């Protein structure tokens, strides 16, 4: 595993999540301990391929229906244009 600071930086990029300097320092100490604890699971002998443990019980035809709440949802957003969320350009 990478050095803790390098790992924190990489995960912070992947998660699109900035951290304060204090959080970075604290997580640098805590994360390796937590990962070591959960890493004990690698010792368990497993054979079967992973499979979903929570089957979907109740599916219905995928028909498009009006939700009736479009304007309520848009009203929560910081910035909208007509019936769209407004986002900075990606490029």
């Amino acid at each position, binding site marked *: 595993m990478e050095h803790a600071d390098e790992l924190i930086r990489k995960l912070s990029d992947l998660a699109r999540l900035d951290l304060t300097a204090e959080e970075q320092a604290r997580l640098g100490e805590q994360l390796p301990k937590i990962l070591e604890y959960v890493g004990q699971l690698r010792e368990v002998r497993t054979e079967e391929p*992973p499979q979903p443990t929570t089957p979907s*019980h109740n599916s219905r035809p995928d028909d498009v229906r009006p939700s009736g709440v479009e304007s309520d949802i848009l009203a929560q957003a910081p910035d909208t244009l007509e019936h769209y969320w407004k986002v900075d350009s990606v490029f």
Partner: protein
Amino acid sequence: MTTLPATIREVHRGLQAKEFSAAELAAQTLERIASQEPRLGAFLRVREQVMAEAQAVDERLASGEPLRPLEGVTLAVKDNMTIKGEEATAASKVLTGYRGVATATAVARLRTAGALVVGKTNLDEFAMGASTENSAFQPTKNPWNTSVVPGGSSGGSAVAVAASEAVLAIGSDTGGSIRQPASFCNVVGMKPTYGRVSRYGLIALASSLDQIGPFARTVEDAAHVYQAMAGVDEHDATTSSQLVADVVAGLGESIADMRIGIPAEFFGAGVDPQVAATVMSAAKVYESLGAKLVNVSLPLAPQALATYYIIQPAEASSNLARYDGIRFGPSVRTKAGLEQIYRQSREQGFGTEVKRRIMIGTFVLSAGYADAYYHQAIRVRHMLREEFDRIFDEVDVLLTPTSPTVAFPLGARTQDPLTMYLADLLTVPANLANIPAMSIPGGFIDGLPVGVQLMSREWDEATLFRAGHAYQQVTDWHRRVPE
């Protein structure tokens, strides 16, 4: 009314005898909340609208309508469930000011049954925690001793019932978030089978684990709340169309010959010996009622916590990707580009524990580590489920402590996340196995409550409620109230 009614039965008796009206009950409950909140901090918001709703109940009754199952009964709702048009924050700054676009199915069904929602209760931010100290807004205190935590994440709901601020409450349980605070506060808390209660309108934490369930003083009342919420919902594809048994009607049935399993792994390492002894004395009560105690083993149970703390952060990190400063709440509108809007909005909106879980979840799902961590956890979860399946061929119910310890002091575990995670040691197995489980009051150690956890096989909530009810018929721990 000299004291507030504590059970559905007491509310209904009072309403029918015209000792009080629903409006009087609601008004006195709001007064009670106002008097307790400076000390306890269980509520994030009180609903003044409940007065008009209570008057509507009184009008129904005056016009001769029959009493509905929860008619006029006060209910507190964890603030990670939405009510249309009203604020729901999940105790996170990210959702400050967010208003529900629909009413959660569980809440809607309880209101249809006549319940009166008095307010929204505090929780650990996004239900991540075991003490309610991770709320972005306030800690909640335990009414048995305000220097200890109430448990979490549904600490506000547990305290609301324990401190007579509501007769009933609902919470969500992903790894013990209903049962553990119920245990710390001396109330009943129950997690149904995964798929039994709709999560529509529940702000998601970990979608393969989350379930909504009741808090009450008695198992009988918890059964009524469960019954009103349970069943298929077209808005949640994980809800099952399996028949929901009438658990209330089955409560009085005998438990003689019930086989109760005592799994050694839940009484050993990491469990306070005094807690283990208290819970074993509850097992003896069952024996005196004619149940048979059977020593059983779940060899994978000690791996459950590590399994949980891989799967849960993985799912949480995915679910929380939606809080990006574009669709909800506070947004840092920097000119530095879209990615910086995401990164800075998330930095400012999320608390420390939420960030920690996002980082753990991102790690266990990342290229190079996903097989050793996430996929391995899924495999172990499947094996653990099979272990539980086999055990329930031998026994009807498992009996264990709910929590390894009684309630711990405020601040004692906030600096060390691993010790906080250990509080979930005995509750996460039921979530991983999808089975129903319940915590019932089972004694005290130095003035702090001890919860007894019961688990039953998938979809067999009826046996769970019957077992819990039988215990409360011959014990009075649940009648003890703080103060």
